[in-house]
């Protein structure tokens, strides 16, 4: 038996390994491009995609206008506090409302876009065709993730000019908007990867979608509920510091790290000068919070890669899923 490495003409060890890494990287990038082009050709065909962007921006603009009008009305009727801060309050209110709405949209759309990406290949029996090519499993997973999310990213990017309206009112700095968008993109990547992971783990798309939705609910409503419950069960001293409770003094802050809404509340807290509503909400749930960042992407993508050609990760047994007659 003869092994035939691709680059046999190279002799020294170090250049071989560098060259191999370069070839490997090039192939992976080529594979991601192959998957990306294929997926986008299907998704972006016709005018539908662009009509949806237009409608989406229209609805978002209407929502921003309504929120701004509501807050302005509160100030003009004298219930909003000193009108000296009215403009800043409108800016912060519109910023918070738009950001929360877009987070909600990302939380629903990102996993929904990826939950079928691998399982559909299985169901349509196209995965074998793909797995028999030298394209790497990593390229398949990353290509699927990015192409599924690219439309969502388009919606997010299209909202930037609309979001810039808050600068007219003030109360929100460019760095706050930037932080908000970083959390949005991280949420899309994280929950998109989670959907992809479920899609590679569970064979059927309907089941994969159900598992994904359940997981997303657990990560959002579930974590918030546990934190609220934990806080409510605690005992506090006169200064409001936690002194104990049935689950111990330290709150399970890790739970907050996977909740995109708490992350956005933390972003909003950054716009407030003193003791704003968002800050107190975040502080009550996560007393030790200090810039929550949302990073589960890597955690889900790795397992998804190994599920594509299971026998390469696990020699025996794991591939019974791909068993067929014969």
């Amino acid at each position: 038996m003869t092994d035939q490495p691709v680059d046999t003409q190279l002799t020294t060890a170090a250049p071989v390994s560098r060259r191999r890494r370069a070839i490997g990287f090039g192939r992976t990038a080529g594979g991601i491009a192959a998957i990306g082009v294929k997926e986008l050709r299907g998704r972006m065909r016709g005018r539908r995609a662009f009509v949806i962007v237009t409608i989406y921006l229209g609805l978002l603009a209407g929502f921003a206008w309504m929120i701004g009008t509501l807050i302005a009305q509160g100030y003009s009727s004298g219930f909003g506090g000193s009108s000296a801060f009215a403009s800043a309050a409108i800016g912060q209110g519109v910023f918070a409302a738009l950001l929360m709405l877009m987070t909600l949209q990302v939380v629903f759309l990102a996993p929904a876009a990826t939950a079928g990406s691998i399982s559909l290949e299985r169901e349509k029996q196209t995965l074998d065709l793909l797995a028999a090519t030298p394209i790497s499993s990593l390229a398949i997973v990353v290509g699927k993730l990015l192409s599924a999310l690219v439309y969502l990213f388009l919606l997010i990017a299209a909202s930037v000019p609309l979001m810039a309206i808050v600068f007219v009112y003030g109360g929100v700095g460019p760095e706050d908007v930037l932080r908000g968008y970083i959390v949005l993109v991280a949420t899309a990547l994280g929950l998109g990867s989670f959907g992809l992971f479920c899609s590679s783990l569970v064979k059927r798309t309907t089941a994969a979608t159900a598992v994904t939705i359940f997981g997303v609910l657990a990560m959002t409503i579930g974590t918030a509920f546990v934190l609220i419950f934990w806080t409510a069960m605690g005992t506090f001293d006169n200064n409001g510091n936690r002194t104990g409770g049935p689950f111990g003094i330290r709150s399970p802050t890790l739970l907050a790290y996977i909740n995109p809404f708490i992350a956005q509340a933390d972003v909003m807290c950054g716009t407030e000068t003193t003791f704003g509503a968002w800050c107190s909400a975040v502080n009550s749930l996560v007393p030790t919070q200090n810039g929550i960042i949302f990073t589960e992407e890597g955690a889900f993508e790795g397992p998804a890669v190994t599920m594509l050609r299971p026998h390469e990760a696990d020699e025996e047994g794991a591939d019974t899923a791909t068993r067929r007659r014969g």
Partner: protein
Amino acid sequence: MTTIVRTDGLVKRYDGTVAVAGIDLEVGAGEIFGLVGPNGAGKTTTLRILATLLAPSAGDAEIAGMSVTRNPDQVRRVLGFMPDVFGVYDDMKVWEYLDFFARCYGIGPAERRRMIADLLDLVDLAGKRDAYVQTLSRGMQQRLCLAHALVHDPQVLLLDEPASGLDPRARVELRELLRELRNLGKTIVISSHILPELEELCTSVAIVDRGQVLAQGTVSDIERRLRFGSVLRVRLLLEGEDLERARARFAADPDVASATIMEDGTIEVGFRGDDAASARLLADSVAAGLPIISYARAASDLEELFLQVTAPDRPPLEAALGVHG
């Protein structure tokens, strides 16, 4: 002829069941090799192991000298695979379909354009270049899938039941296409349970059943080894008891295993002897005054061989193959 596909004691176990129980195959470069067997014989599993989609439980396989378990990535580059059941992507045009797979193999844009035009000509789909894949007929999709397996100009093609679900015309077209590919120097391993198409096409076959190779070689080679069990059909100008007496006379011959009167009045003789023995039997029968109208060896085609070799109770033929093979 250099061996290009070799399996060495290939075993595949799924919890509890054994799909492939030690298959050894050798396929020479440029051959069209048929893997014949009933459903569940282990053909698909063998091909999927060769296509690097399944890991064997034991044994190994080599394609162009590279192990499918140790160098799957390199093997995929010299291999085109067409599964028995395959789907097509919705919302994709015919040329985009081939373009996608060509990109998966890292083929550059200029070469892709040229290759797609050539392949569509080869599989006779040039007129459907801009049609959506899901609108193609089954036969066209089958040809497109074959074209997808050719985008990287592989040395070896693995085709799992490529003719299943095709109408007779599409089947003939596929056969022509495979001949053309063979002329282009491709080695083709093709599995099927529909035998006539393989008989005309294959340079050699392996008969597989219950995860084992029962016979391997050229069709005529296997046939020759099976002479041991050839069948003679004798028609006589006799009826009733006379016919029965003639049957008993045939049955009494030392080279005859069995003699049966068929519904059409012929006597079917299970014959163990060689051609000389067959000639002697005829001469003896004529000398004994039997009015023989015709005396011929039943044409032993692949289908018959297949039925004999894979019969559930496997009569002495299997032992014969084992001993003489």
